[in-house]
C-alpha cells in the first residue's frame, strides 16, 4: 500500500508541476508571501475555531456537571452553533468605554493579550519526522513558548489600569501576582522533559517519545509522572482558569479585569484565554504525552511513516496532527472538568499552592529525574524497558541541531532509497521542499542542505 501511495503522489505532483503557469522561481517574493499567509491563516483558524468549539464544549460540560442539558436549540442537534450565534450577538453590541478611561490603552489591551496567545502557536509543532508540521522550527522552542505566554498578562494589566475602575484594577493586580509566581514552578516542570530529551526543540522532544505509550515521558520515571501533574496545575493557574481565576472572581470583583469591556473587545479576551488553554495543553501533550505519537502507533504500524517515502510520511504526519489535537482537546476538557468541580481558591491559598507546594515539588522532581537519568540511562517506562532502536539513534544525533542535521543527512538518503520519490528537477526541488516543510522561510532549509 505504501508504494502505491508513493506512486500516486509522484504522479499527482509531477502532473501538477507540469503546468507552466504554476511555476514560480525559487526565491520568488510572491511564493514567500503566500507560504507565510497560508501558515498564519491556518494558525489563526486553529485558535479562532478552537475557541468556538471550546466555548460550546464548556457550556455542554458545565451543563452536564450541573445536571442540566446546556445549549440544545441553535444549529440543530447539540446546540453546536450556539457560540456562533453569540459571536454575532457580540458583533452587534455597543462598544462601551468608561468616561475616565485611558482610551488608547483601553483599545489596545485585548489585542496585546490575543497576539501573545497566538504567537505561541508559531513554534508549536503539530507533527514531526523528516518534514515537521510547524510554523517555524526553533532550536529553543520550549523556552520561546514560555517567554511568549508570560506576555499575555500585559494585556490584562493594561485592561485593568485603563478601565479606570477599581474592580478591573484589583483583578489585574491579582493576575499579575499570580502569573509572575506561577511562571517559576511551570518553568521548573518544563525543564524536566527538556533534560530527559536533551533538547529544547519540541520536534525533537516529541520524536524522542515515538512508538508505544511506554516511551511517553509521562511514564518515563516516577519523577516525570509527578512533574506532569504539577505542570498541569501550574498551567491551569497560568492561563487564569478556575480554580485559579482570581482575576475575574464574580463574587468579589464583578468580572475582574474585563468588567468594563463589551462586544468584540471582550470576545478577544476570551479568544486569548481559550487560545492559551490550547497552547499549554499542546505543550503538555508534546512534552509529556508523546506529542503526535499515539498510545498505539497505528500509523507507523501500517507503514505510514517517513521510512517508506514522502506520501506515506505526509499521511502519517496528518494522522499525527489529529492525534496531537485529540490529546490537547482532552487536556482542555480536563481543565473544564476541574473548573466546574472545584471551588475558587482564595488569593493566599493560590500563593501557598505555588510557593509552598508547586515550587518545592517541581525542584525535587527535577533533581530526582536527573539522578534517574544518571542511574538508568537509555530506558523507558519507569526504567523497566530499554528504549527502542529509533529513539536511541535519535538520542545519538546532536540534540541541539537534530532537526537540521536530520534534514541535511537523511533527505538525500531517503531520496535514493525510495526510488523516484523526488522526481523533480533540482531547481524545483528546493522550492517544493521549502513548501512541504511548513517553514515560512523555505530558503533556510535549502541553505541547510
Amino acid at each position, binding site marked *: 500500500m505504501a508504494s502505491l501511495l508513493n506512486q500516486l503522489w509522484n504522479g499527482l505532483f509531477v502532473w501538477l508541476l507540469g503546468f*507552466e*503557469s*504554476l*511555476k*514560480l*522561481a525559487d*526565491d*520568488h*517574493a*510572491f*511564493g*514567500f508571501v503566500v507560504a507565510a499567509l497560508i501558515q498564519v491563516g491556518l494558525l489563526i483558524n486553529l485558535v479562532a475555531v478552537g475557541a468556538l468549539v471550546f466555548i460550546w464544549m464548556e457550556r455542554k460540560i458545565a451543563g452536564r456537571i450541573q445536571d442540566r442539558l446546556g445549549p440544545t436549540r441553535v444549529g440543530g442537534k447539540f446546540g453546536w452553533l450556539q457560540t456562533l450565534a453569540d459571536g454575532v450577538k457580540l458583533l452587534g453590541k455597543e462598544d462601551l468605554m468608561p468616561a*475616565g478611561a*485611558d482610551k*488608547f*490603552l483601553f483599545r489596545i489591551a485585548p489585542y496585546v493579550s490575543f497576539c501573545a496567545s497566538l504567537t505561541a502557536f508559531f513554534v508549536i509543532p503539530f507533527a514531526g519526522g523528516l518534514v515537521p508540521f510547524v510554523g517555524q522550527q*526553533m*532550536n*529553543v522552542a520550549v*523556552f*520561546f513558548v*514560555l*517567554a*511568549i505566554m*508570560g*506576555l499575555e*498578562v*500585559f494585556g490584562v*494589566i*493594561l485592561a*485593568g*489600569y485603563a478601565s*479606570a475602575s477599581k474592580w478591573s*484594577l484589583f483583578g*489585574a*493586580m491579582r493576575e*499579575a501576582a499570580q502569573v*509572575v509566581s506561577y511562571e517559576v514552578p511551570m518553568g521548573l516542570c518544563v525543564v524536566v522533559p527538556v533534560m530527559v530529551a536533551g533538547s*529544547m526543540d519540541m520536534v525533537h522532544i516529541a520524536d524522542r517519545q515515538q512508538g508505544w505509550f511506554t516511551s511517553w515521558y509521562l511514564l518515563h520515571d516516577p519523577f516525570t509522572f509527578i512533574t506532569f501533574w504539577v505542570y498541569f496545575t501550574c498551567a491551569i493557574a497560568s492561563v487564569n482558569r478556575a480554580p485559579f481565576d482570581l482575576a475575574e472572581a464574580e463574587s468579589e470583583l464583578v468580572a475582574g479585569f474585563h468588567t468594563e469591556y463589551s462586544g468584540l473587545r471582550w470576545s478577544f479576551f476570551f479568544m486569548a484565554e481559550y487560545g492559551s488553554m490550547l497552547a499549554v495543553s499542546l505543550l503538555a501533550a508534546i512534552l509529556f504525552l508523546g506529542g503526535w505519537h499515539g498510545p498505539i502507533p497505528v500509523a507507523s504500524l501500517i507503514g505510514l511513516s517517513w521510512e517508506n517515502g514522502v506520501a506515506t510520511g505526509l499521511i502519517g504526519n496528518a494522522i499525527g496532527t489529529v492525534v496531537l489535537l485529540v490529546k490537547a482537546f482532552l487536556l482542555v476538557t480536563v481543565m473544564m472538568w476541574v473548573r466546574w468541580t472545584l471551588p475558587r481558591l482564595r488569593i493566599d491559598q493560590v500563593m501557598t499552592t505555588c510557593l509552598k507546594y508547586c515550587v518545592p515539588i517541581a525542584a525535587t522532581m527535577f533533581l530526582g529525574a536527573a539522578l534517574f537519568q544518571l542511574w538508568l540511562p537509555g530506558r523507558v517506562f519507569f526504567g523497566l524497558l530499554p528504549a527502542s532502536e529509533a529513539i536511541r539513534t535519535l538520542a545519538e544525533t*546532536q540534540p*541541539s*541541531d537534530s532537526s*537540521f542535521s536530520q534534514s541535511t543527512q537523511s533527505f538525500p538518503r531517503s531520496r535514493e532509497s525510495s526510488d523516484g520519490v523526488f522526481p523533480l528537477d533540482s531547481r524545483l526541488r528546493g522550492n517544493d521542499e521549502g513548501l512541504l516543510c511548513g517553514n515560512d*522561510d523555505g530558503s*533556510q532549509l*535549502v*541553505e*541547510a542542505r
Partner: protein
Amino acid sequence: MTKDYCAGMTMGLNSWRPADVNWGSFFFLIFASLAGGFAVAVVLSSNIVRMAFYLVLSLAATSGLFFLAGADFVGAMQLMIYVGGTLVLLIFGVMLTSSSPFVTMRTHSGELVTALLLGGTLLALLCYTALGVPQWQSPAIADAPADLPPVTATLIGSALEGYRFDALDEPNETLRAGMSGYLFPFLIVSVHLLVVLVGAAYLARAKRRRDTSPATS
C-alpha cells in the same frame, strides 16, 4: 482564455525580479523603526504606564531583530528577561498612579538639560564604539555562504560548561582564555541573586510585622 490569463498573470509576477526583495533588510527596517519609534515615544510620553508600555513594545521589537539575525536564544532571552522584566515596571507604574488615576510627569527645564547631556554623552560613546569595530566598516557585505550551519544555542551551552569550540582555532594563545568555562561565575552570580531575593522577602516581611504589631496589642 483562462489559461492565457493565468499565464499572463504569472508572467507578470515572474518578470518582477523577486530576488531584489531583500527580506532581511525589509524586516530589519520594520523592526528597527518599531524599536526606534517606540523608544522615542517612551521619551515623549508623560504618562508612566504608557511609557512602560511603549518600552515593552520597543524591547519586543528589539527581540524581533535578534530573531531576524538567527539568534533565537538571545531573542527568547530578550523576551523573557527584558520584556518580562518590564512587567514589574508596569505594575509599579500602575500601583503608584492608581491612587489618583493617570498622573502625568512634568519635567523641569533643568532636568531636561541634565537628561540631554547624559543621554547625548551615552549616544556619542555608543556611536564612537560602534564605528570603531573594523568588521562593521567593510564597504560590501558578502552574502552568507549557502552551506552555513544553522545558528544554535549549543555554543553558548557548551561554553558555559567549559568547551569553547569558537576559540579552538584561535592562534593567539592569550585569546584562548576562558576555556575553563563560565559555570562557576554563573553559579556565584545566581547564588548572589538568590540571596538578594531572600533578603528582599525578609525585609518586606519584617516591615509588615512591625506595622501590624501595635494594632493588635
